[in-house]
């Protein structure tokens, strides 16, 4: 068996014929040997196996091309299962994922753009990732939350986009921050649909060459900086509504696991630490604290649902997290009139010392929050 396995590793091109031996060969050989070899070149994307057992998979990627590449594992609707960006020429990378039975595609994107060079793979039988009833319960509850956020957001988006379409600057400014709360609470899930986020939530500095600037922040600039809504801006309003309707429709199908929930909570705090605390996210409207609060609420929702699991494995961690969430929320309450209001102090009025206090409180929470995934999967 060993000779056969080696040939899989060394002769990627012939590997398809050897798929019959997969399961047991990998198990008996230990670490890393079960990896699917992916050889990415400028004009090809060779995959050593196209039929895989369900469960844990590992892609060993080698970029033998001349361009920086990225490699994705995709659901049939292009939803991302796992990905790795910025794989330089001549370098290797590893991608791991838990995969259930079904059809998938592996895509290499030389130059990190376009549709990519695709290879279909079939995943069958095997062991699906094991999930306990309490984990299923947490995931189901989070899925409901995510859907509810989208459902509640759409009418608020409508108020905003109607005002923009009507050219009513004041009404649009009033509706802007509120229209973003549900999105900000569930951003990691929304971002897992790679195509929606760049259309609705991109900032000027995040634009790629030749990408047209659309979405909330384009309108934010028109409302607060340019102080006018021209024909072009008005036309962007229905597009924003349409893209967010797409989000509402698809969000329920997002692949959610306890790990992705825990990591998503941490990512929401990362969003706060890099975009909101600095005032970059809402640089024209200065409504950063509304997004900030929404990010924290979304993280707290994931955490609350995972807490019964995490507290069994690491009760010290959950005690710390309870305390730090409470401290950050209390600090944020200083910046709004009452605790049910989403009208926060304009961020340009928040001084340097106060921003540092907020940043310290974010770090205080985000550092232990980064340990939640491990506490859930232990």
């Amino acid at each position, binding site marked *: 068996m060993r000779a056969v396995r080696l040939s899989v590793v060394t002769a990627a091109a012939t590997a398809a014929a050897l798929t019959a031996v997969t399961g047991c060969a990998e198990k008996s050989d230990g670490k890393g040997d079960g990896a699917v070899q992916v050889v990415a070149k400028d004009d090809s994307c060779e995959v050593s196996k196209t039929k895989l057992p369900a469960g844990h998979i590992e892609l060993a990627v080698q970029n033998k091309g001349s361009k920086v590449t990225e490699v994705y594992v995709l659901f049939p609707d292009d939803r991302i299962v796992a990905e790795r960006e910025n794989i330089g020429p001549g370098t290797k990378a590893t991608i*791991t994922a838990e995969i259930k039975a079904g059809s998938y595609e592996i895509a290499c994107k030389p130059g990190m753009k376009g549709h990519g060079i695709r290879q279909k793979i079939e995943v069958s039988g095997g062991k699906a990732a094991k999930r306990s009833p309490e984990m299923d319960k947490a995931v189901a509850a989070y899925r409901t939350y995510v859907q509810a956020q989208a459902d509640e957001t759409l009418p608020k988006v409508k108020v905003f986009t109607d005002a923009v379409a009507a050219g009513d600057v004041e009404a649009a400014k009033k509706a802007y921050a509120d229209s973003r709360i549900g999105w900000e609470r569930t951003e990691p899930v929304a971002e897992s649909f790679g195509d929606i986020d760049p259309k609705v939530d991109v900032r000027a500095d995040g634009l790629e060459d030749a990408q047209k600037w659309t979405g909330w922040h384009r309108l934010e600039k028109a409302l607060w900086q340019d102080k006018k809504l021209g024909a072009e801006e008005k036309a962007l309003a229905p597009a924003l509504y349409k893209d967010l309707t797409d989000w509402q429709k698809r969000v329920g199908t997002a692949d959610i696991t306890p*790990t992705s929930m*825990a990591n998503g909570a941490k990512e929401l705090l990362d969003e706060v630490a890099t975009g909101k605390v600095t005032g970059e996210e809402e640089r024209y409207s200065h409504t950063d604290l509304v997004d900030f609060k929404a990010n924290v609420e979304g993280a707290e929702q994931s955490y609350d649902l995972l807490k019964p699991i995490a507290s069994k494995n690491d009760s010290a961690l959950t005690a*710390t997290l309870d305390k*730090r969430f409470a401290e950050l929320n209390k600090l944020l309450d200083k910046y709004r009139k009452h605790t049910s209001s989403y009208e926060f102090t304009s961020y340009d009025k928040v001084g*340097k*010392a106060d921003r*540092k206090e907020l940043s*310290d409180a974010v*770090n*205080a*929470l*985000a*550092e*232990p929050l*980064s*340990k939640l*995934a*491990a506490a*859930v*999967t*232990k």
Partner: protein
Amino acid sequence: MTEETPEAPRDGNAPSRRALLGWGGAGLALGAAAAGVGVAAARSGDGAPAADSGAAVPFHGAHQAGIATAVQDRLHFAAFDVTTKDRAELVALLKEWTRAAERMTAGHAVGDGAYGGLAEAPPDDTGEALGLKPSRLTLTVGFGPSLFAKDRFGLEDRRPAALVDLPKFPGDNLDRSRSGGDLCVQACADDPQVAVHAIRNLARIGMGRTAIRWSQLGFGKTSSTTPDAQTPRNMLGFKDGTRNISGTDTAALGKHVWAGKGDGPDWMTGGSYLVARRIRMHIETWDRTSLQEQEDVFGRDKGEGAPVGKSKERDEPFLKAMLPTAHVRLAHPDSNDGATILRRGYSFTDGTDGLGRLDAGLFFLAYQRDTRKAFVPLQRRLAAHDALNEYIQHVGSAHFAVPPGVRDKDDWWGRALFS
């Protein structure tokens, strides 16, 4: 580097026997006086100086390392605000910091290391010091006046009288955000990445209990505690602080640096008081100053560093030959009733300011037995008369009580203060 030094221990494992013999021996030679460890100095057989820049300096001892220790090349100094209001959390942090410091100063990664742990969790150690030698890293902790404030941690009765609020000196232009701090950590090492790694990891461990208030990188030592070594030059191009206290002169250290029994509260016995000042230098105007004036300002010649009228740097200065405003004359113990400090400062250059001027100067660090009798009168005199004031400005200031050393694996920074 790792190929040449297979014993490099920064892998989370214990150093090899060879590493212990090689570096540990050299480190003990350096740290013996500093850490008060009574171990005979070991030197390498070829007569090369014991200051092996890769060595480890012992962490445990009667005094904290990083004071009398031979001055390392690089500095990362951080002042922290304590953000928790819970005394027990602060104590827990000091214990965690102590354990992490023991590991890092020995050249190990903190906690469970930088890799190989749970895939779902971030590694305990941040990893940038992997493969680097211990680099004579020392970590020295101090407690600022604000830590002893009322209604904080119940320490108001334990504040040493010597830990005064520093007075405002003429010419001070202090930036609050670069001054003060409840705690400080001075990280010195011969490799800048080792020093930065240490502060970064302590800051990370502290999140939620402490937050960095300000920090300063220093790239070149400006003082030496090894009298046979050349006195390094400061950013003005001069040797300054020639008459520093030697790290092996236990009599002078006992007289001028270590707080003695009965000096103040018992918890400070064996400790020291640290004054940190960020001194910005007006580099461009200094560079346009004539050589004569530059030498008059310091009271030394620029080439050799000899005092006015003398030929060698270490010749005893004849103070009256210097201008009354000369820096050396004003700072000399004979002009200050014998007040003596141990200088451990570093040059810094934080890029340029918005006006195209070099943002450079001296990050002044001075250790002393009693600040009221050393830095305060000394700085009063300098601030009032020093000709150098035309070319410098004090822009940051902090004062810390540096407790005695951590004795062993069960001891921790500040145990005597909090017990």
